[in-house]
């Protein structure tokens, strides 16, 4: 089979794991303990064919709001068919959530850097996100 034309080949997704961990060591630690049982390479969920984190759009947006909302509230599949589920991580402090968010963006994200993430987490928790 002929190879896909160059223009149709997806560029490799970034994974700046070491640099992200240097910049946000607490975020890396929290991610390792809270997230990797589903989101690490080779985790059970990945083996079931779920997409890796950078395939989703939230880490490629201009602001961290969707990423924050998903961490604070989790994801619930619709009633009926089975679907992806993620528990809410609302017991983390605002600073801890911000560390995870910044680690994730540094590691996988594209687009402009996210500033004032802790303030955005606080607003999201209070239901004040625009």
């Amino acid at each position, binding site marked *: 089979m002929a190879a896909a034309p160059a223009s149709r080949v997806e560029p490799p997704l970034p994974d700046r794991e070491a640099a992200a961990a240097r910049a946000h060591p607490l975020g890396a630690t929290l991610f390792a*303990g809270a997230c990797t049982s589903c989101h690490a390479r080779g985790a059970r969920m990945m083996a079931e064919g779920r997409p890796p984190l950078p395939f989703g759009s939230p880490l490629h947006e201009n602001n961290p709001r969707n990423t924050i909302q998903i961490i604070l509230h989790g994801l619930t599949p619709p009633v009926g068919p089975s679907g992806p*589920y993620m528990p809410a*991580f609302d017991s983390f402090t605002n600073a801890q959530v911000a560390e995870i968010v910044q680690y994730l963006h540094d590691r996988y994200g594209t687009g402009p850097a996210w500033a004032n993430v802790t303030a955005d987490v606080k607003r999201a928790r209070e239901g004040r996100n625009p």
Partner: protein
Amino acid sequence: MIEIDVNGTAHRRDVDPSTPLLYVLRDDLGLHAAKFGCGLGQCGACTVLLDDQPIFSCVTPVAAVQGRKVTTVEGLGTIERPGIVQQAFAAEQAAQCGFCIPGMMIRAEALLRGTTHPSEAEVRDALQPSLCRCGTHMRILRAVRRAAKLRGGGVPDPAEPIS
């Protein structure tokens, strides 16, 4: 070195800060009430209280709980002096296999710390994240109603749907 406060006692352990709290409770502190079920924060068997909030300890890194109070079922009472939630669950024989029961008791405790007069809907909502595969839900619900009463409150007319 990690310092954590569990059931009112401060512990220092040399564990990796990313270790899930559940592993530290079970493997390092010998507290076996919280169970490993799915390891993904989906079944609720590992539920413990962080301050007054129920959390999945299997997906909570121990680094995240420093300086806060962790409570497990061992902290609710003893065999000789069971706490109110434990008394109620025993009286209603709420456990069949028992694997989900510590998580259910912790969720009941969290609910009743907030209010001794929850509605039936609030009780069910509070327990919803914990799964029971034996099907003893009706006994578990009765146990929570009994615990509310023992705490001087109550749950008004359950009016359980027929199923």
